[in-house]
């Protein structure tokens, strides 16, 4: 292994953290759904991909400027979540969890194929007002895009934490997840909670999409890989914990960058999966454990 200069080290670290934040952000989307409904949404990455395409279409085809694009994308994606929940997820409430898991796997395939048919398979670029020359600090040059990702992720996480911890609706969501029947008995509108959770989650996916779009080229397959890595992030962090998802995401982001640098890029992605399997052998409950043995 060559000696890594400080500049490269910091740069890899920041790239790793920003990618990790992205994984964490996608993970937040399905951790939220998991927390509220105990369903696992495997299509979260593909929903994010749709968000990226919608943003791209609004910006380049319809000619909106950046801020309206952001607002409209988030709004449209929340609407998308509503439609998704009404048509596909609601009939599955009360079904075994693995049926929902497979359902969302199928949904991911459909979303990817439809996106490919609508927008084509070639890669598209998405520019933002902050896609300018990188910030240079001595040997280190940092892209603003990456810094924005980190900043937004921290803000969003904090917001979500406060929302779940202190608002009436957040507590209702937690109650609905702990015991649907009991929550319904005490007057929580469980169905509505589920619907709004999906809207919220797809809105978060939209934010992730708006952040990922300037960093990478947009193509239909973008969501799948990011989605899987987000799952790895959530598992490494401990499924069902918001902070865990973020920490896990940052961990795998950094590992991926450094392994990719050391082995000339080829094994960066694979290292993530190896890390996951190692983690499952050593500490299957994740860094922040939220699962315990079920009591009968």
């Amino acid at each position, binding site marked *: 292994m060559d000696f890594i200069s400080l500049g490269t080290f910091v740069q890899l670290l920041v790239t790793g953290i920003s990618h990790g934040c992205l994984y964490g952000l996608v993970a937040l989307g399905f951790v939220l759904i998991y927390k509220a409904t105990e369903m696992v949404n495997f299509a979260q990455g593909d929903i994010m991909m749709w968000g990226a395409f919608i943003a791209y279409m609004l910006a380049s085809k319809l000619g909106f400027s950046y801020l309206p694009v952001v607002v409209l994308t988030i709004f449209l994606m929340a609407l998308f979540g509503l439609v998704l929940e009404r048509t596909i997820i609601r009939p599955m409430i009360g079904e075994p969890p693995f049926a929902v898991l497979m359902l969302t796997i199928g949904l991911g395939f*459909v979303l990817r194929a439809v996106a490919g048919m609508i927008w084509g398979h070639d890669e598209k670029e998405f520019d933002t007002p902050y896609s300018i020359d990188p910030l240079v600090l001595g040997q280190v040059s940092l892209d603003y895009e990456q810094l924005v990702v980190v900043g937004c992720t921290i803000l969003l996480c904090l917001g979500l934490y406060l929302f779940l911890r202190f608002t009436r609706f957040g507590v209702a969501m937690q109650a609905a997840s702990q015991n649907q029947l009991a929550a319904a008995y005490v007057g929580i509108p469980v169905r509505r909670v589920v619907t709004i959770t999906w809207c919220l989650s797809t809105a978060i996916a939209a934010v992730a999409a708006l952040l990922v779009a300037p960093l990478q080229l947009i193509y239909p397959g973008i969501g799948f890989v990011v989605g899987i890595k987000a799952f790895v992030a959530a*598992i490494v962090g401990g499924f069902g914990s918001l902070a865990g998802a973020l920490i896990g995401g940052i961990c795998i982001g950094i590992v991926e960058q450094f392994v990719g640098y050391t082995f000339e890029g080829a094994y960066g992605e694979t290292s993530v999966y190896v890390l996951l399997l190692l983690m499952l052998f050593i500490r299957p409950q994740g860094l922040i454990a*939220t699962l315990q043995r079920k009591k*009968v």
Partner: protein
Amino acid sequence: MRFVLKTKYTQDINLFLHNGQRFWYGLLMAALILAPFFLESFYVGELTYLFIWVIAGAGLMLLIGYTGLVSMGHAAFMAIGAYAHAVLFKLGVPFFPSLLMAALISGFLGAIIGVAALRMTGIYLAVATISFAFIIEKVISAWRPVTGGHRGFIVPEPVMFGVDFGSDIVFYFLCLVIVTAVMLLVINLLRSPIGRAMVAVRDSEISAQAMGVNLVQTKTLAFTLSAAFTGLAGALYSHKIGMLFPENFTILLSIKLLMLVVVGGLGSVHGIVFGAMFISILPQVIAILRDFLPTWLAQRRGLEPLVFGSILLFFLMYEPLGLYGRWVKIRSYFTQFPLYRKATFKRQKSYLRTERVH
């Protein structure tokens, strides 16, 4: 409906319940034995593919349908079986030992994943297996001296005792024998304490444990057997496709296998065969569909994944018991006519309670 009056205890363990079943399955067997002498070689080849899917499906059905562990990376075990067999066979290991070794190697790796899977359920396992599949794909493409990487690996013609197994008809009968053996094994396994333990684990881990089922043993065994069957299918598959590429064993194959068990009907042995028939016919149906669809849609890439995904969605939402479940409903409609009630097969909803502490 036919009621069988059991007068001996041995009747309980008969493979076939009554003579009607004996007749129909016998007829099926006879048809399958005679088929290659009457059918064109294309259809013989298709039937062979069907047998291979049945073997792979049997493996996945044991895991998903009977033990309740979802694997999204079974293409990896098929790849391991295919490459292990092809490489061993090329090194000079005789055909059958090589086939057996492929199943064993695949089963061994399955056992390792199974151990990791012990404390996992649902999503953890799905992501772990999908990661495993990605790793295997990478290993195959990177380990060029052995696997040939992306340039492919030519599977040598199987010749044994002077008999060329590569010829369509001989290979057909080889697959027929293996598929029959695998199905008998699966049926008997499911009637044995091991199979019962698997079903118990699927329905409730806690209750199973309380009844004295060894969770560790059962899950690991289920994973090992599942991987071994799928590996065996992969080994046979390698001869059928002739040339191995890492691209043969991607996530799309895993999804295809998943679709096999879901569409066939989770938790039924018949479902394996129905599912295998379904995915064998599907590519042809899609090809025919392309002729009828407007060209702007038919020529697009991604029609196949779209159809795969939609079918998965459709079955999970409207017919979670799959084709076999539909068949049972149709059958009971006629046997109980005119007393059939729709509510007989109504699914029980269960409301979730979390396992999390906060």
